[in-house]
């Protein structure tokens, strides 16, 4: 029995409707995900961008004898409640460092107290009517103004909101990542090379392979516990240091690097290996001269992605003590330091609105770093991708 086109279209209509419905549902899911992303970014930008601005006041600083003991003498009396007390605290130090300053004076832009800063940004603050009018006048005359917040990028953490910056965390992150990469990259790559190019295919190597894959799925806080128990308690690595944090994160990054390196090695065609063996290369020469150079873009991409993952990690670092109040920009691998996500975590616990702003600002900096790292990985892959 044959069907006419009409019969068939009748039946088809239902199927087409069904596929159209599914298409709309999946597009809706994508749209929803996109919407959340947009909301997240809008919220972060809205809260975080003001953190990149800060109120400064232009005033004369008089380095007098009295100022060396009572710093408030250095500036006009009515400015004392407006200028940040962290700035005032600095003046005696400056004098102590350079005796010649005494008797001179200097016109300077100083940080303004956090409450005034918040008032200028239109946020909730503790200023009374009178003080607000006084500030408005100074803004009018150009003595007080909102400018780019260089303090945020040049200072470590502070309990005083206007002084708190992310530099200590950025430096801490860089040092921690240097340790992580220095440990996990060579070990990870060599492990993968052994498993992929040298190891016989037996029960033992299969068990190792399964374990490495499982390791990638272990909750990161467990790596923190391992780091605490082994690196800090057993080997005596200094607590809270980039060394301890970097070693812990290296454990976490290792499986990622091993898995991506193996995938990269496997994607090198066997014909290249045969060609190299055919001209009399030893196994190591085949790997070093032919396989590794071809796999390098894949290895680099995997390592950068593993590193980016480690960079955003907080949980294991809480355990090894890297979530701490660190006002000084670190200079050593064995001294206490903090990292960006930990700094964000610390700020998020502060009640003042100025710190809410800094939390969001910190997130924006972290996101910017992560996005540039990932973009770098993509670029690397595109640039070195070879065909054969």
């Amino acid at each position, binding site marked *: 029995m044959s069907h006419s086109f009409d019969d068939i279209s009748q039946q088809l209509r239902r199927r087409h409707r069904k596929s159209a419905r599914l298409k709309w549902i999946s597009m809706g899911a994508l749209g929803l995900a996109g919407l959340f992303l947009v909301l997240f970014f809008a919220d972060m930008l809205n809260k975080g961008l003001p953190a990149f601005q800060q109120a400064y006041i232009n005033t004369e600083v008089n380095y007098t004898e009295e100022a060396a003991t009572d710093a408030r003498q250095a500036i006009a009396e009515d400015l004392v409640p407006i200028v940040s007390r962290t700035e005032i605290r600095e003046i005696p130090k400056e004098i102590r460092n350079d005796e010649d300053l005494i008797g001179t004076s200097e016109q300077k832009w100083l940080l303004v107290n956090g409450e005034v800063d918040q008032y200028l940004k239109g946020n909730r603050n503790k200023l009374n009517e009178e003080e607000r009018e006084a500030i408005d006048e100074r803004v009018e005359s150009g003595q007080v103004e909102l400018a780019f917040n260089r303090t945020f990028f040049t200072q470590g953490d502070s309990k005083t909101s206007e002084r708190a910056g992310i530099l200590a965390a950025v430096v801490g992150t860089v040092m921690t990542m240097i340790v992580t990469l220095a440990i996990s990259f060579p070990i990870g790559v060599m492990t993968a090379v052994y498993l992929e190019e040298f190891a*016989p*295919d037996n029960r033992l190597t299969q068990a190792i392979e399964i374990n490495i894959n499982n390791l990638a799925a272990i909750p990161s806080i467990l790596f923190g516990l391992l780091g605490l128990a082994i690196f800090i308690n057993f080997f005596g690595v200094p607590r809270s240091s980039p060394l301890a944090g970097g070693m812990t994160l290296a454990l976490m990054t290792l499986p990622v690097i091993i898995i991506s390196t193996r995938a990269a090695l496997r994607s090198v*065609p066997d*014909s*290249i*290996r*045969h*060609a*190299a*063996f*055919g*001209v*009399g*290369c*030893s196994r190591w*020469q085949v790997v070093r*001269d*032919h396989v590794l150079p*071809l796999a390098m873009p894949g290895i680099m991409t995997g390592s950068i992605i593993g590193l980016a993952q480690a960079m955003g990690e907080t949980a294991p670092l809480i355990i090894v003590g890297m979530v701490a109040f660190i006002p000084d920009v670190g200079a050593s691998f064995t001294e206490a330091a903090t990292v960006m996500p930990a700094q964000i975590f610390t700020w998020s616990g502060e009640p003042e609105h100025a710190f809410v702003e800094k939390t969001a600002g910190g997130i924006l900096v972290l996101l910017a770093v992560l996005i540039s790292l990932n973009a770098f990985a993509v670029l690397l892959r595109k640039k070195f991708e*070879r*065909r*054969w």
Partner: protein
Amino acid sequence: MNSQAPVMSEQDIPNVGQPYTRNDQASHELSIRVRDLNLWYGKNQALKNLNIDLFQKNVTALIGPSGCGKSTFLRCLNRMNDLIPSVRTEGLVEMDGHDVNASKMDEVALRRRVGMVFQKPNPFPKSIFENVAYAPRMHDMVSRKADQDELVEQALRDAGLWNEVKDKLQEPGTSLSGGQQQRLCIARAIAVQPDVILMDEPTSALDPISTATIEDLMDRLKEKFTIVTVTHNMQQAARVADYTAFFHLGEIIEYNDTKVMFSTPAKKKTEDYISGRYG
């Protein structure tokens, strides 16, 4: 099977291997001697009691239907089968009085004397110059830059590629055409000055013109090298080979002077195969 037999002379085993007619134009100096060679892939026996003498400065073609073991046999000659974990080999493959399968034989040394050209052209993804210069440098055959340049030029000339690539030695080897790539692979193989060159269906991925070029090349190369080639193409065997071995199901059915083999095959199976009745 007495695989631990002391080194045997031809007189001890008069009719071992296949009886063959001497090719009067060819050299009769022994290059590789194979006795009672057996090979298994796991439990699967792929080569059965092979006995064959390969002569220096000749082209020997290995023909036979797919899966008959001719490529497997070829790879026994430079121990490329070592790379496959499940392979087990027994028997004697002797070159220059040395058993190539002996534990004290270094496969790297062997592969320097027995080069290989593969079915699909597989130049290294490096420059044309590097493709040829890499192996001699690795084997410490050249010490000065000038020696290296000279050696690369000589190898490319021998492979008949020099005139086509002399102006673009720094371009990637993979930018050449298929036939040129295969000649580059031949240049790469002869750059280390081996005694034997194994070719595993070197023209099967090439067009007829490139194939003809490679065949001419084989004809010239046999003045310097012993060539063992696997081919699916019987006309090719007839054109280029001095000797031909016919493989079937892991055994050598017939091994003879090519002209004799193609005009008056001794075995029925050979005749059926070369006349195209199966294969």
